């Protein structure tokens, strides 16, 4: 039988400790360990070491492997004075973590030394409840949810693809959604454009979408842009600063404008397209991966573009492709997982098959290649005689 003091003394002999001064030096070095705050939530909310992750001592054993699967990763555990973190370090050692230290003196000593402190923004009780299923996922968590709330996503089109994409992004709490679409809601849209409804017929799509999305989630602000994207307005629309563009356009002129603008502004584009029973999705990530012009340098000539009368789409298909776009967008914002950059996904709804082809960055690409030949926006002619609508 041992008293708490005896137990603590024994544990401290079995673990490695560093001072807060050493901890601060390591934090600023190029090989900083990951700081793990094992205090309670009210302590964390009053301030923590910059870059630290929060796992309360009581949840440490159950959560650590999900959050930090690499057991050789250097970890620096801290609490308020260095006791809870000492016990925590011992447990992690028993769980197979090989490079764990406890910060002696803890956060109290850190603050006494005048070192930098991050005051975390906290979710309201309503947000905790609304996003609880996100908060339970280690890859999202509170920090990820804050990222989503801070994120700004521009949707090109509030149609077939934009409907499911915007609904899921709004539900996920993406804080600002810009929507570019010049059209009004038409009866023929409602077979697949689920962000709209019958009582919105004749209403501008951007306003109909705004009502639906802000009604779904009051954390979301929708910035409506009731115009068609052109070389004249693209710079103005992009000037608002967007983290990700979701391309749900249904025509080549818009797709090439979006691509060129995104390359020049360094904004990733989550691309989706649909036709009848088949859809495609990929991510164009400027700098890191190919762009749309690496895939298709230019649109087909008008005479070879497929006849407009042959169109049509199964209503659920944009639901599937648009949801894939929402998924890729969330991953880009959260900086988690492997994006579709460099891979074009081909979905066939009739056979229910998913194929994938490789898309490589083209060194001869006219926009993102080594010697670009296109340096200004190009307004391609529309291929149909009938007016086009987005999405």
């Amino acid at each position, binding site marked *: 039988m041992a008293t708490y003091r005896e137990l603590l003394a024994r544990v401290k002999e079995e673990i490695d400790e560093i001072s807060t001064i050493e901890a601060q030096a390591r934090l600023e070095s190029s090989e900083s360990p990951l700081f793990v705050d094992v205090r309670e939530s009210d302590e964390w909310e009053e301030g923590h070491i910059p870059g630290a992750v929060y796992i309360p001592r009581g949840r440490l054993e159950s959560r650590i492997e999900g959050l930090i699967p690499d057991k050789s990763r250097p970890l620096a555990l801290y609490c308020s004075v260095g006791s809870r973190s000492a016990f925590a370090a011992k447990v992690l050692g028993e769980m197979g973590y090989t490079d764990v230290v406890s910060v002696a003196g803890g956060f109290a000593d850190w603050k006494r030394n005048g070192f930098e402190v991050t005051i975390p923004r906290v979710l309201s009780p309503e947000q905790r409840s609304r996003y609880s299923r996100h908060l339970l996922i280690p890859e999202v968590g509170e920090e990820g949810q804050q990222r989503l709330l801070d994120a700004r996503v521009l949707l090109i089109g509030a*149609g077939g693809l934009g409907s499911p994409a915007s609904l899921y992004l709004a539900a996920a709490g993406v804080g600002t959604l810009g929507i570019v679409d010049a059209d009004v809601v038409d009866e023929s849209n409602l077979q697949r454009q689920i962000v709209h409804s019958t009582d919105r017929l004749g209403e501008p799509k951007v306003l109909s979408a705004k009502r639906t999305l802000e009604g779904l989630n009051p954390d979301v602000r929708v910035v409506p842009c009731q115009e068609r994207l052109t070389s004249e307005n693209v710079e103005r629309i992009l000037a608002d600063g967007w983290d990700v563009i979701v391309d749900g356009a249904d025509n*080549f002129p818009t797709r090439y404008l979006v691509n060129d603008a995104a390359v020049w502004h360094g904004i990733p584009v989550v691309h989706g*397209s649909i*036709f009848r029973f088949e859809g495609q999705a990929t991510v164009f990530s400027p700098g890191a991966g190919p762009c749309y012009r690496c895939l*298709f340098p230019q649109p087909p*000539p008008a005479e070879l573009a497929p*006849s407009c009368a042959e169109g049509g789409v199964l209503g659920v298909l944009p639901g599937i492709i648009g949801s894939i776009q929402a998924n890729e967008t969330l991953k880009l914002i959260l900086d988690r997982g492997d994006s579709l950059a460099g891979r074009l996904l081909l979905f066939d709804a009739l056979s229910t098959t998913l194929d994938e082809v490789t898309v490589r960055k083209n060194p001869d690409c006219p926009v993102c290649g080594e010697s670009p030949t296109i340096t200004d926006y190009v307004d391609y002619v529309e291929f149909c005689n009938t007016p086009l609508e987005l999405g």
Partner: protein
Amino acid sequence: MAAVRIPPTLRAEVGGSRLLEARGDTVADVIDDLVERYPALGAQLLQDGELASFVNVYLDGEDIRTRDGLDTPVSEGDQMILLPAMAGGSPKGGTQ
């Protein structure tokens, strides 16, 4: 013999088929075999004997332009995907 996936935008040119078998030891031969049987495909795939810039051809998931282009060898059982640019959106617009 390669299995060639025909995209929905080109099915009118091949009588509605989604998948066609075609013969040839290279991508060029396989396309020639297809065009011989479905002449309307020619204008959609080729420009001056070269693969049109708005069409991609994938052999087992790799863009043939990153391999040997139309000279890329085709093995028995390879899967080829023809992929013209597809803007894709609403039924009214089709692929415009």
